[in-house]
């Protein structure tokens, strides 16, 4: 795990020398990214990557108090995108607006445009229940249902009516979450008998079982010990082969270790200095953010001078 830190930080997007030439000579169609090789679409220069989310001037308020102001960013396909920033800067708020979890807070209001593969997540015909089937979420505190391990994983597929043998679906999800070997003999035990780290991986398995495209994670490791944390980080790196992941974390090393892109948010005073809200300060490749940030506030924050 530890040597990953340096690896991830110094890792540059895997571009071969030929890429520049191909690009320059127009071998790749600039407008149709689907013809590009997959690796290039996901890890190449940002302007060519396939976008999962496009946020344009997104603001979120709670009962008139703005929590997040004017965020514009693209979140890329099969990338791990980290949201970092001091407490209260609106990371969770922003994350929860991506799968309409904010709809559950009556006072919450989302403005601006939030596109998922080009479709407006807040469009008039969009069903938030459907959105959450496609964009799953894992929470800070492990929140398994007070049911058996099996029923926890089966809950989602039963809800969405996924076809297939439920036993297979449950096993597959637990395997992908790296939990199968630990729990295969006690699937009928209550999930509350598991350790915190196992519970969190169960929550990830539960989320995977629905076969989402995107997994949103809000500080998934903050309640876990370093070993469980390392397991979940490994898991995230495996999962990004199939899913786009957006993770909120307070752990700089974690962001550096696992993410491809990092967004730094911060609480800023409004122009009239009457109230404060969270703003996106900088968003770039993780390696850039952690080695050569473009904004001094980012540098202060990641070097521990603020927040």
């Amino acid at each position, binding site marked *: 795990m530890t040597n990953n830190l340096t690896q991830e930080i110094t890792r540059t997007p895997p571009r071969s020398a030929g890429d520049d030439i191909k690009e320059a000579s127009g071998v790749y169609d600039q407008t149709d990214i689907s013809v590009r090789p997959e690796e290039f679409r996901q890890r190449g220069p940002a302007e060519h990557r396939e976008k999962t989310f496009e946020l344009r001037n997104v603001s979120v308020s709670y009962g008139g108090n703005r929590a997040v102001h004017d965020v514009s960013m693209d979140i890329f396909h099969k990338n791990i995108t980290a949201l970092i920033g001091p407490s209260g800067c609106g990371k969770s708020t922003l994350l929860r607006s991506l*799968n309409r*979890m904010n709809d*559950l807070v*009556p006072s919450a209001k989302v403005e601006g445009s939030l596109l998922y593969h080009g479709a407006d997540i807040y469009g008039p015909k969009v069903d938030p*229940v*459907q959105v*959450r*089937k*496609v964009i*799953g*979420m*894992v*929470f800070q*505190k492990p*929140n*398994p*249902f*007070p*049911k058996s391990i099996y029923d926890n994983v089966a*809950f*989602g597929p039963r*809800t*969405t009516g996924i076809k297939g043998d439920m036993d297979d679906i449950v096993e597959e999800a637990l395997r992908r979450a790296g939990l199968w070997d630990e729990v295969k003999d006690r699937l009928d035990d*209550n999930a*509350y008998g598991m350790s915190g780290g196992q519970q969190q991986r169960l*929550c990830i398995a*539960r*989320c995977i079982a*629905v076969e989402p495209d995107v997994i949103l994670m809000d500080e998934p490791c903050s309640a876990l010990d370093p070993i469980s944390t390392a397991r979940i980080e490994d898991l995230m790196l495996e999962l990004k082969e199939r899913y786009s992941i957006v993770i909120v974390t307070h752990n700089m090393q974690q962001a550096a270790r696992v993410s491809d892109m990092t967004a730094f948010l911060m609480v800023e005073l409004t122009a009239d200095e009457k109230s404060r809200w969270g703003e996106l300060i900088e968003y770039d490749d993780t390696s850039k953010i952690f080695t050569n940030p473009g904004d001094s506030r980012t540098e202060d924050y990641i070097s521990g001078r603020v927040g």
Partner: protein
Amino acid sequence: MTTAGITVSGGGAGNSPRRSLEAPSPRYGEKTVKVILAACAGLSVLVTTGIVLSLLSGAADFFREVPIHEFLFGTTWAPAFADAHFGVIPIVTGTLNIVFWALVVSIPLGLLSAIYLSEYAPNRVRKTIKPMLEVLEGIPTVAIGLFALMFLRPFLEDVFPFLDWTGPHAIGVAGVAVGLLIVPLVASISDDAMRSVPRGLREGAYALGASKLRVSARVVFPAAISGIVAAIVLAVSRAIGETMVVLMAAGARPQITFDPTKSAQTMTAFIGQTATGEISFGTIAYYTIFAVGALLFVMTLVMNLFAVRLVRRFREVYE
């Protein structure tokens, strides 16, 4: 600087090198409060024990005259007649009839209102309805009895015209009235139980693409089951113990029947009627009241124990 620091830390508590750890005063006030509180708690236990003991001693006097099996298994209840019979089954079935109809009405109505209040209702609506429910719980039962006779009975006659509505009293009418009486109780307690299910569980289910109905039925409801069972047990106790509505609407004819349009006497109605009539102290009729009262007590006790076990078995414990 350094010297000053050492001096201050060494003499922080004045002249004494160590600060006293003993209580500065004897704290009589606290001790008095403790005694008063313990006395109050003790008094309520004493009163309850007293009630139970007086019931049991009266019942013991009764069973010296009437064999217990004749009481428990006899099918004729005529304690005040010259040719007296003490078979309690007719008035027990009367009570069970009332409980049945009361639950048929109050469980669905109460639980559905609770789900609405806790999961669906906007805050504003909940804030108006919840206090109204709590006021409804306190309506005098005589008023409900009147309501049963004046409105409910004609209403049910209209809705079920094919039933045989002879006689002025009907178990069904009384049972439904008792049910309506306890709906607020069931709704309010179940609502509290469901509201106290942690938000994280709900969010976890919503995040899996569950609809509101599914979250309510498959996550919130099972997690709140112990509170909901408690609500139902309380409801049954209320239904068993309800006297006035039953006396007014179901009448006082001790007979074994399951026809909701017929009259029947319940255990409480018997006690209420007999205790308010002319009975002389020390007669067998007088002791009958205690025997029936003791049986009522045992029934509720058994039901509560049963409910506790049921809850242990099925509850989903959340942190």
